[in-house]
């Protein structure tokens, strides 16, 4: 078989919009023609990308809300890990402490915070890290 398949036909074959008999012919040609096969591979890649789902605008506010909660938790933790006075306050009333930072006091977050509050005075850094990680999971 001589010559090349017109590029438009290759694109249509890849997109699956040509009659089956013609598609079979083109597929057969692609196995023997490196140049047409290269074009087909390119179109397959394009079509695959065009078919992909895209971020949904409607869910973005929910993601931004959670992000804000994360940023506030980060600020909360920075203070918690650097100010002993603040740690004492958090131990006394974790729920109010979270609310002061406009963080939703979810049950998981309050529970994780209670574990930080229960740490012995002479804890090591890894214990804190482990408990801080639990806090992130509580968001």
């Amino acid at each position, binding site marked *: 078989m001589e*010559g090349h398949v017109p590029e438009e*036909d290759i694109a249509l074959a890849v*997109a699956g919009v040509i009659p089956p008999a*013609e598609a079979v012919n083109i597929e057969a040609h692609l196995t023997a023609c490196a*140049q047409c096969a290269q074009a087909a591979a390119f179109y397959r890649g*394009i079509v695959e*990308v065009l*078919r*992909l789902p895209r971020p949904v605008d409607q869910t973005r506010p929910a993601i931004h809300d959670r992000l804000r909660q994360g*940023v506030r938790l980060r600020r909360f933790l920075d203070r918690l890990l650097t100010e002993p006075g603040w740690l004492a306050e958090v131990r006394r009333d974790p729920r109010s402490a979270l609310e002061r930072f406009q963080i939703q006091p979810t049950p998981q977050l309050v529970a994780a915070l209670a574990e930080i509050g229960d740490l012995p005075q002479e804890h090591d850094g890894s214990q804190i890290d482990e408990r801080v990680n639990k806090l992130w999971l509580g968001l």
Partner: protein
Amino acid sequence: MEPADDTLVQRCLAHDEEAWAILLDRYAGYIYAIATRGFRLGPQEAEEVLQETALSLVQHLPSYRGRGPLRAWIGAVAANAARQYLRRRRPTREVLTPIEAADLPDETILERAEEVLTVQAALQRLPEECRMVLEQAFHQQRQYAEIASALGIPQGTVASRIARCLLRLRRLLEPEEEISPRREENRSGRHLKE
């Protein structure tokens, strides 16, 4: 004017919520592409990975020392979030493909995501008639009759418009010199049936 990445990082480290929102919007498409093309996740799963990546960025940004491009660091965090997401999920037949994708190196995953952004950017440079027909045919997966009706064109011309627009997209994505010899040949290209 949108702030540069390094400025944004400094503001994020100071817990500036607006800066975080800008950062997320700037990289949401990239993170989403890592989930969908790199890990072959569906839309809902990709949204979850996007959300978890956002939190992970907040948690770990202090460890980003600016030694490499922010984009690469965010890509690595997103790939890690996607892998963790897949590990947490109960294995079922449906998730075999994503799990296989999870074994790919970060470099491959991120390259695939970059390709998505490149194609999407090129798509935006096409005329509206092309964007619409490609969008409806592939992203929305609409029937030809629906596309014809929506675009106000005869049904018989939908396929040829798709082909023409795919070709235009290729011209934008591949340097002219790489495909020009083939273009010349195609002008006299013969159908296989001949």
